[in-house]
């Protein structure tokens, strides 16, 4: 049942992120480059699923890393560095969404290419048959329609597989609040997509 427990435990990277942060604070730009190489795919994915297109995602990722570099001296060692980094970058993404909501007219994910809409076929699920590329686009659009308070936990949960506790740390809310928000977000998504076949299919 526990998806996280089913996954193989990855060995911690060496050197750990915290040591790299200390090197950056000691004046090493190479350490920051190493940090960026390590976390750039995740942050780019985060930015991609917040913005919905590649160009904005690239800009937002760059902006996120530059901002990270500026605030790196304020890294709070109580957090795991990944959690702290996603905290900073999620706030950055939410700010981007808020500032670009008016300017954006086209729906996100509506112009995804076939390659980006490709479905992984190594994860068979109960709704393989009905979950098409169109269904994925609609699902991502539905998530994008959520308020940021509900979109962020869904994104963090399914994109980076953060636990509720880590999501609570990232969003500065309680674990119980994370639980409630995730559930409400899923209910909202279900209300929006309940007519689709892949959700109504009986097991």
């Amino acid at each position, binding site marked *: 049942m526990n998806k996280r427990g089913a996954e193989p435990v990855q060995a911690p990277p060496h050197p750990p992120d915290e040591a790299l942060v200390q090197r950056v604070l000691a004046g090493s730009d190479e350490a920051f480059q190493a940090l960026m190489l390590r976390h750039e795919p995740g942050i780019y*994915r985060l930015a991609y699923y917040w913005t919905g297109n590649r160009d904005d995602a*690239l800009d937002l990722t760059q902006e996120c890393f530059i901002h990270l570099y500026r605030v790196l001296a304020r890294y709070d060692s109580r957090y795991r560095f990944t959690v702290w980094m996603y905290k900073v970058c999620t706030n950055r993404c939410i700010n981007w969404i808020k500032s670009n909501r008016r300017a954006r007219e086209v729906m996100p994910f509506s112009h995804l290419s076939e390659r980006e809409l490709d479905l*992984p076929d190594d994860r068979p*699920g109960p709704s393989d048959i009905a979950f098409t590329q169109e269904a*994925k686009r609609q699902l991502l659009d539905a998530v994008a329609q959520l308020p940021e308070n509900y979109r962020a936990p869904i*994104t963090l949960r*399914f994109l980076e597989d953060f636990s509720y506790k880590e999501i609570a740390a990232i969003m500065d809310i309680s674990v119980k609040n994370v639980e409630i928000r*995730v559930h409400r977000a899923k209910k909202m998504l279900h209300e929006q997509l309940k007519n689709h076949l892949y959700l109504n*299919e009986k097991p």
Partner: protein
Amino acid sequence: MKNLRLNTFHLRKRMRRNVGGCKRFEPQLSAYLDGELTPPRTRALLLHLSGCAGCRDRLHAMERLQGALSRAYATPLPREPQLVSQVMAALAREPYRPTRAAGWRAEWKSARPFAPRFRPALTALAMAGMAAIFWSGYLSQSLPQRGASPTRLAVTPSQASPVASAPTFASSSVPPVVPTAPPAPNASAAASAKITETTPRVSSHPMKKADISHSVPHTSAYRVKRLAPRVERPVRLSHPSAVRVRPFRVAHPSSTTRLPNLPASPLTCDPRLNVTGTAETRDDATNDWTGIPSDSSVKVDQRVRSGQDSLVTVSLGDGIELRMNEKTEMVPVRSPQPDAPYWVVQLVRGELFARVPKGKVGLRVLTVAGDALSKEGELIVRTNELFETRLIVAQGLAALENNGVRIAAVEGLQVSSRMGAAPDAPQPSLDMNHEFQWALAPMPRDEHATKRPG
């Protein structure tokens, strides 16, 4: 629901947990699917699911949505290899470099000193401050017991004497001008005696009562300094902007020979100062300065004021004050005697201003012509523009000053004038050069106490 494998024992035991219905358990479905429920909550939820078909349907729908979301986000995105180099290029153009110091500065700048990461340090700081406050309070309470140690706070006379024997006229034995003369040997003894005498007064502070009870002279160096008599500003000041005041001469009335005239060395006084001191005389033979004892009948109060005549007030006693300037030379001749109840002073030269209050004792001024005394009892008084306030004895160069020219009120003096009018009712038509004849004659002792002349 293959996970719904609970034995009946737990089912029965947890039956009471199956309260609240779907409203309670439905929000936990997502957490259950995400594996975030604790085991007790999981068991309670499964217990509810075993009897609620609606929640089971919701769980299935949620599970499908969960799978769809997982698959939707599971698509790997193409790598963007230029991203890292772009960011590094942008950072290379940026002058800012993160440092640890910048981190601390930013923390304090963002006004979050009470952030959780600072709380241990702040707590320790507050506790240290409280401990310091309590400790200081304990110290101040236990101070008398600590001060009772005589070896720490008792002051020997040798320690006290350098401070207490500061140059002062009251000690009357310090040579302020001639540095070669050693201080009198009894000076330190007197000073230490003074300190011992005044110790109980100072230590009568409520916090220092223990000092009295222990009868230990609580004389630290600081206290000796405080207890030392206030050093009056000496008359002989040397100042860059000082003006010169020629020495006035005063002699002890009882022994003029023992206290000869002051030497010709000038007195220098700052005109801006209002100097109060006690006169001193210097023996020409030994070149030693000697202050007139305070219990002497002659006290000299020197007040040198700027812009005025640099008057020096000499108190004869009995309230009689003579004011002299730098040109005055005066010798007190005789103190009141039974046959002549008035002071007798000899005005050698210069001007003399006198204030004689009402009383039993009067003043008699002798003037000299050359070396011989002038005719006793005669003063020629000439008015000037300050007739209202003072009279100047022109010929004898002596002036009698009294408020409102109430010369007639001076007891011991019999005043007569050529005008035949009492000087306390001066004629308004007096011209400036009008001369009065003053007859200074002693009054009988039994009369002057009650009878007002004039």
